[in-house]
């Protein structure tokens, strides 16, 4: 095999490998969503309980992805969970919008749903969403259910 055809074959191999990397980055990972997402602005929301919310969870409004959770931490003064959101520029919400922590499916991942309010002014970068609804914690629900059951049972017994 002469030198030229060796070089052509090696070139082919390298191009093929780089194409594979490009495929992994664009089609099988999230590089495309970074470049397509463009500019974002940050908002904050405080929750009594964030449940299983993790950073990089999606932010949705009416079910459409409009951003991402960038960080989750505890405010040591108020003991509230502070969630920082990155929302795509061009998607603006009224000042009195509310944020809920919702679950995709019965046991799916948790995400933040934003319901727009009716205020004329919009939330700007750095604002805090004040109206929030915490995550539903299954244990609390079950506990409440059992407690109600027990209370009902207690009332019925004397009859």
């Amino acid at each position, binding site marked *: 095999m002469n030198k030229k055809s060796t070089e052509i074959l090696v070139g082919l191999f390298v191009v093929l490998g780089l194409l*594979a990397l490009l495929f992994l980055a664009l089609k*099988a*990972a999230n590089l495309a969503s970074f470049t397509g997402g463009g500019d974002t602005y940050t908002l904050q929301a405080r929750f009594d309980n964030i449940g299983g919310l993790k950073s990089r969870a999606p932010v949705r409004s009416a079910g459409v992805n409009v951003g991402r959770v960038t960080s989750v931490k505890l405010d040591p003064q108020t003991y509230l969970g502070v969630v920082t959101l990155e929302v795509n520029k061009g998607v603006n919400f009224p000042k009195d919008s509310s944020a809920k922590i919702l679950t995709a499916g019965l046991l799916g991942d948790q995400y933040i749903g934003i319901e727009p309010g009716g205020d004329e002014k919009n939330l700007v970068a750095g604002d805090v969403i004040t109206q929030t609804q915490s995550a539903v914690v299954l244990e609390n629900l079950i506990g409440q259910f059992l407690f109600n059951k027990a209370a009902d049972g207690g009332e019925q017994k004397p009859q």
Partner: protein
Amino acid sequence: MNALQIIGQVVLAQLARWGHGALFFLDLLRATPSALRRFGLVVGQIHAIGNRSLVIIVASGLSVGFVLALQMYYALTTYGAAESLGLIVNLALVRELGPVVTALLFAGRAGTSLTAEIGLMKAGEQIAAMELMAIDPKARVLAPRFLGGILSMPLLAALFSTVGILGAYVVAVLLIGIDSGNFWSIQQNGVDVWRDVGNGVVKSAVFGVICTAVALYQGFETEATPEGVAYATTRTVVTASLGVLAMDFILTALMFSTP
């Protein structure tokens, strides 16, 4: 007294062997920049190491993708989560199986041929002849092969993962009937370019260094007899595979221990 002496002997011999290997590795690193100046040699080695491993890598990637998709589907339907098939196959391939299986195949396919080639060069006293002509055999023979291995390995691992994911696509979408848009979008949501794909590439580059350095060392230090070359070739596969697996554990712990 005799037992103590034996213990000391064994420990000293082992330390000497490790030191010998480490010094060889440092020499190899020192010789590597000179290979960049004669890149034609490196291209030849990429052809020998990379191109000729292509068929086995692609075939293995495809079958791993097929089998992983089928098995995962079986487990996931129990939980009604068959949709996340693509994500699981993707993460498994990109983070672990791509780099590791490629490195194991690489040690068997390319590592052995490197060891045998250099071992026979040594048995034929070509290496001694080079030294006699004041040509540094580490710069002329070993360094181009070393660079060729390091450059080929990440590309081979990326091809392995890609072909595996395409194989999973064939099984998941064409055979099982999972929605194609869902198959890709769930991967794009769950796989991070730098954290998952990037770390996979770093892993495969490290494995490339391990496999190639071990193969070259075994070839260069072989006894110049037919049995010596055979023994060195076997040791290449064993040492490189164990090194890759041990290193994989360390790298995984460093890269992915924090969520």
